[in-house]
């Protein structure tokens, strides 16, 4: 009998040493009967007595592997102990993992070496898991830290959590209002924002998580106690829910709710720890975004007062203004302008443009004070010298010599022209663009305001014909340094040349052209604040609109 031969043959050759082998060894003959096993194999597969059918006594994966090895059919004998036809196979036997290495003999018998790689597999799995988690945390951090917008942070948090931690995730932000801002994201879907009228204290653990204090651990809740808004539509039956607080920097950042369907895997301890690591990052990003939002809303409120207004037509006179602060990251500085419409129709509007000594926030604060003072002095607007003297007195201070240079202009429509009174208090002289392209300097001169006991100034009066303009500007324009060859000032002569090409242009085009050319002159260089205001007498064919006899919708 072949099987007997095989049994004795193998036993005679290798018996003693095989029993000592650290690996279980099984031999099956060409008829798939077990013919030999060593001691280790006996311990591992107690049922695999010699003579039993190999496929009946080994786990399925090994039986399949055996069949695959045997498929080529009875060996012809040319390839004794041929290399196994496929890479080492592996599977579990009992609770442990094995690699199975077959070697096929010329007579068709197969020797199976079973190598226990359980620890190796566990280590590899743990390593893979760690790598995946580290990669995920790195990705999460870079996505979360890139945004200072709370809504976007919540979206990213919900989406990442749904992709990596749960079947669905909710991010809930703390609120002062009655409605809870909630971002919901199912796995594979996109985040959606809603506002739920719900009391967070009705959900166990949620109220504490949203208050952020005292610190609470993640909390399991009974899925049946979850309110309906917590479960995304078409989610199916919830198997488990965990609520994890999002820790902020001393401020509550919100809560992360993770949901898994019933039937799926529940959260393991290590997953829960990992969720907390993620929550720490998400919470830091969300609280930074919240602080940023609070800061900017404060700044916005303050800035609204400090930013120059947008100008338009008032009582038949065209106004346009443009302002560029010295550094691109600032939006306020030491230059300012305002147009104050007359209290009584037919009186002159007052235009102010000025330049406060200094830079940055300090200058901006002084600018605010000056604009407020000028506003308060509006009843005296027809007496420029008086306004300037009162402003001078208001600004004089024994501790510093901060000053302002400014131009006051009173403009009123008269017939088709505009009558102007201009006063410069130590400020670059206003320029007049006549219809023929001539550029004139206004004949006004005076001293700066706020640093010397008196501030005398000479006022001049003139008339703008239709299409003519008066240009007020700060020295940021003329002092702009650069040019094609570098190192030269934009200067008054160049400004005049530019303005003479602007004859007949609408006021906003003149502002834009001056700003554009000065900016291009500077190129990438540094510059001071730059402000321009243009007062124009509209071209005559606007008249009907100005008087409101036609549509007039387009005149504000």
């Amino acid at each position: 009998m072949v099987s007997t031969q095989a049994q004795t043959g193998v036993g005679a050759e290798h018996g003693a040493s095989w029993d000592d082998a650290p690996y279980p060894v099984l031999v099956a003959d060409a008829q798939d009967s077990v013919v030999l096993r060593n001691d280790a194999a006996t311990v591992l597969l107690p049922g695999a007595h010699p003579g039993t059918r190999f496929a009946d006594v080994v786990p399925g994966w090994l039986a399949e592997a055996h069949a695959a090895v045997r498929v080529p059919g009875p060996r012809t004998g040319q390839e004794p102990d041929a290399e196994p036809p496929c890479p080492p196979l592996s599977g579990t036997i009992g609770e442990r993992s094995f690699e199975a290495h077959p070697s096929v003999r010329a007579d068709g018998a197969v020797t199976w070496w079973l190598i226990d790689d359980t620890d190796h597999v566990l280590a590899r799995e743990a390593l893979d898991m760690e790598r995946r988690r580290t990669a995920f945390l790195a990705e999460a951090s870079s996505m979360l830290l890139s945004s200072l917008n709370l809504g976007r942070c919540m979206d990213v948090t919900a989406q990442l959590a749904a992709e990596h931690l749960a079947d669905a995730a909710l991010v809930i932000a703390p609120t002062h209002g009655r409605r809870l801002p909630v971002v919901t994201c199912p796995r594979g879907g996109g985040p959606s924002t809603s506002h739920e009228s719900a009391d967070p204290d009705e959900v166990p653990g949620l109220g504490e998580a949203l208050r952020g204090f005292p610190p609470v651990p993640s909390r399991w809740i009974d899925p049946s106690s979850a309110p309906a808004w917590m479960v995304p539509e078409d989610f199916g039956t919830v198997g488990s829910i965990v609520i994890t607080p999002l820790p902020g920097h001393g401020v509550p950042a919100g809560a992360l709710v993770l949901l898994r369907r019933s039937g799926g895997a529940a959260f393991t301890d290590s997953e829960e720890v990992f969720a907390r690591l993620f929550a720490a990052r998400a919470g830091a990003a969300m609280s930074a975004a919240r602080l940023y939002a609070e800061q900017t809303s404060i700044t916005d409120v303050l800035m609204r007062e400090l930013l120059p207004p947008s100008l338009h037509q008032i009582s038949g006179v065209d106004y346009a203004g443009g302002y560029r602060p010295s550094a691109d990251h600032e939006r306020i500085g030491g230059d300012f302008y305002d147009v104050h419409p007359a209290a009584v129709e037919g009186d002159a509007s007052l235009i102010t443009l000025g330049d406060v000594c200094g830079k940055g926030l300090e200058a901006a604060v002084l600018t605010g004070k000056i604009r407020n003072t000028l506003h308060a002095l509006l009843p005296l607007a027809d007496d420029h010298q008086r306004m300037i003297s009162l402003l001078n007195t208001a600004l004089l201070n024994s501790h510093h010599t901060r000053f302002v240079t400014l131009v006051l202009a009173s403009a009123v429509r008269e017939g088709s022209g505009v009558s102007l009174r201009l006063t410069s208090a130590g400020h670059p002289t206003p320029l007049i663009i006549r219809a023929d392209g001539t550029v004139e300097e206004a004949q006004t001169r005076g001293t700066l305001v706020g640093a010397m006991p008196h501030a005398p100034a000479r006022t001049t009066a003139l008339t703008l014909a239709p299409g003519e303009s008066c240009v007020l500007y700060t020295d940021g324009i003329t002092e702009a340094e650069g040019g094609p060859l570098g190192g030269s000032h934009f200067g008054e002569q160049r400004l005049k040349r530019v303005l003479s090409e602007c004859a007949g242009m609408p006021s906003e085009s003149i502002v834009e052209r001056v700003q554009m050319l000065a900016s291009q002159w500077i190129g990438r260089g540094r510059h001071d604040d730059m402000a321009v205001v243009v007062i124009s007498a509209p071209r005559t064919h606007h008249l009907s609109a100005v008087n409101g006899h036609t549509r007039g919708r387009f005149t504000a």
Partner: protein
Amino acid sequence: MSTRTPHRPPSAAAGTVRRLSEELWSAVSTADEHTATEVVLGALDNGVDPETVLLDVIAAVQGRVGEEWAANRLSVAQEHAATAINERAVAALSRHPAARTAPTRGRITVACVDGEWHALPARLFAEVLSLRGWHVDYLGAQVPTPHLIAHLHRTDSDAVALSSSIATRLPAAHAAITACQAIGVPVLVGGAAFGPDGRYAFLLDADAWAPDARAAADRLARGPLPRPRPDHQQLDDLPHLADQEYTLITRNSASLVRSVFTALHDAFPALRTYSEAQRERTAEDLAHIVEFLTTALYLGDEDLFAGFLTWTAQILTARGVPAHSLPPALTLLARELKDFPRATRALDHGAAALAPVNRTAAESLS
């Protein structure tokens, strides 16, 4: 390309559009704001779709303004006046009841790249988006990137639409695109700067590009733009920047222009007879050439520089100024930049492209 979309306005008869465009053009080219506004509002009163008025009338007329300026049939002042009146017409349109739309979609920020002064295309696009129900934040011309980013942190915009018409603004556009993407906001770009086929939009890794306002609005209507990769860096798009040619030449551009300007006095003796203003213009032209050269180096695209040179030659020729100073200027630049292989190649390429144009110009004058 946009005929399939549900938002395509009911097309006004081509004849109506042509008539309105002619009327608006004659008003705009004579700086007649009143008539211009009447034309636009009258069209809305008569039921012409506001989007048609914006894109097929106002935008078309603005395109003609540019062409007429290039052909020297409009002065700078006329061009500015025409643009301003078009802008006022847009403002008037946006206040007409027919153009009032309550926001039903998400939020889009529309801005021009830093240094970009042509605001009208962005403005028109912003109006189109409003008409289609988006909540639009229009930030206007030349928005410094820090302002744009601060705005995006404050508002939860779904996307940024960035407009640029001049190629030399592309490095600034790239900075803005990368910055927006870095904070997780996708960017749609448009405008002539990105090339007729959008090649620079793809090169600079914008999330979307559209050839015109209508197509751009259609793209946004189709669904959200993909979320940008968070770790995207400028150098990833343009590995050739590693040779530092762009950086070094940009940093020293003023002194480069100075050297070439000085040397040009010998190479091009007519310069000595120029007035101060003419000399300054020549220096500005040189600075402009250098700016285009550096832009071409930034993008790694020699054709861009060649295209600029031929365009400049045409503009000069249209103004009766033969571009005789261009070839010697290129030679001098090549001499100054001989240690920069990519710049040298671009200059050679440009000089070759310029040769036929100059010949034609010389022949037409002789």
